[in-house]
């Protein structure tokens, strides 16, 4: 496995008395392969690996650290810089808007997030502003009813911003309001406009980009477009319970200079965890 070949390269460094260029190049090559197979953006991988190579060759290991630990430390530092620490999740009154590509897990995440806040003692409401997808209303309504969470939607209203506005009014006594939206991508200009229109109505405290852990090289560009349209305040990476490493989503976080608030690790409302950067990175490197 790739994790295996990276481990082997690092083992060689461990038994080396000093780091020479050939050894570092070999290790950096394995780091590149690990990052690329984890879906990290290609250009980003090249940038990071150049920095890792330069630092490994030019920096003296701190006292008490052997060359292998030093290289691992550099790799971790560079990746932590990209993905950042977990976002702060304020436990207070707020409105959250969930946006993202088709099928990324927004609706499921809306129910998970609502469950999270509800368990923290905050009165939570969910608004279905997806007026496009067949069965979106039924899907979210069923998820919310199972958790005893207030739900607003309107099957008869095709105007998403209007549903959002009326929904926020209906939910005004609630502490946390979560607005689910339809999936969309950067090239669907009418849907990007709709998202801007919903945003103008909702003016959410948090606009969370929900991204599938398996998303590939498209991630950075899509995140950039979403960020440009309404401004991303955080990312939620879903479906990390599979084999996908989340490198695309990590690239998106780096691209938008945001951070990861939560991760999704399953289909039920309980399957939401706080993001832990170290765990994420060690899993990414395989």
């Amino acid at each position, binding site marked *: 496995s790739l994790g295996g070949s990276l481990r082997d390269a690092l083992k060689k460094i461990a038994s080396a008395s000093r780091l020479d260029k050939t050894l570092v190049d070999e290790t950096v090559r394995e780091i590149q392969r690990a990052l*690329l197979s984890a879906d990290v953006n290609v250009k980003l991988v090249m940038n990071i690996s150049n920095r890792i190579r330069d630092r490994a060759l030019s920096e003296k290991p701190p006292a008490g650290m052997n060359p292998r630990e030093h290289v691992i430390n550099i790799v971790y530092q560079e990746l932590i810089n990209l993905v950042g620490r977990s976002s702060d999740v304020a436990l207070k009154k707020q409105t959250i808007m969930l946006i993202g590509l088709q099928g990324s897990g927004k609706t499921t995440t809306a129910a998970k997030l609502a469950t999270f806040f509800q368990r923290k003692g905050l009165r939570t409401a969910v608004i279905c502003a997806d007026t496009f997808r067949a069965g979106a209303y039924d*899907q979210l309504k069923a998820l919310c009813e199972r958790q005893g969470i207030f739900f607003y939607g309107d099957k008869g209203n095709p105007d998403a911003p209007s549903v959002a506005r009326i929904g926020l009014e209906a939910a005004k006594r609630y502490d946390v309001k979560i607005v689910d939206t339809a999936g969309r991508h950067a090239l669907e200009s009418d849907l990007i406009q709709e998202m801007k229109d919903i945003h103008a109505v909702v003016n959410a405290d948090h606009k969370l980009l929900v991204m599938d852990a398996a998303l590939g090289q498209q991630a950075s560009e899509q995140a950039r477009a979403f960020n440009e349209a309404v401004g991303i305040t955080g990312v939620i990476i879903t479906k990390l319970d599979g084999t996908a490493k989340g490198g695309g989503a990590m690239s998106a976080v780096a691209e938008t200079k945001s951070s990861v608030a939560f991760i999704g690790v399953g289909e039920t409302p309980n399957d939401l965890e706080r993001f832990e950067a170290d765990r994420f990175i060690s899993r990414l490197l395989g």
Partner: protein
Amino acid sequence: VILDEKDLQEPLWALEMALLESDVALPVAEEIVTSIRQELVGQKKKIGSDTGQLAEGALKNAILKVLSRNLMDFDQFMKESSKPVKILFVGVNGTGKTTSIAKVAKYLKDRGYSVVMAAGDTFRAGAVEQMEVHGARLDVKVVKHKTGGDPAAVIFDAVEYAKAHNKDVVLADTAGRLHTNINLMDQMRKIVRVTKPDLMIFVDEAIAGNDAVERARLFNQSVPISGTILTKTDADAKGGSAISIAHITGKPIIFLGVGQDYPDLVKFEPEWLLDRLFG
């Protein structure tokens, strides 16, 4: 002049990067580039001709070979198959299975076939309702049970309905499932044993990266798939995952999903992908 490894290093590296940036999975990109290197090393090249262009030409041929394996003519398959034809759709969560079934239903109706859809996702909230909306819009019968029921039983009922009413084709939906979920993969195998589909369609998305290989491999290993529908190609996806999936399964890409509406389904042509990658 004889091409050697050193001449090829730069151009092959550039090509490998282009493949990776187009979402071809790393092991697949490496394998393709290695085979091109082996093919080109030692070959004669005319003085003045461009090594980069030679390498790109070899790459196009290699990709064309991967994509042309077992090409399937879906229309021909439908013509020749005894009715009712049973088609099962499987894949991981959110890739576009249910939407693709609705598109295929429209595609077949337009060609004169009578269609039944089986609401075989008995697990996810709103799944049956989603299928019912498509059925109502397309005027296609949907066979369903209550949520929580046995998917194999729903699909079995749909086939019985099709036989009783002389319907040409049953399109059976299933719940999204991760390839790592042993129970759900076992469930899928059971559905196949009970319903004996004529066609197993793996539905995956063009926007997926390296994981496309892993999931295609495990689904194909579990219940050999007949072919793939690759969705969300309209998201500016270069479509490299088509190469990864075709390479690892040896099965054809049958259709592409090019949008969210019913007409957004096109027959896959290898040239389409070559244009995207090299155009």
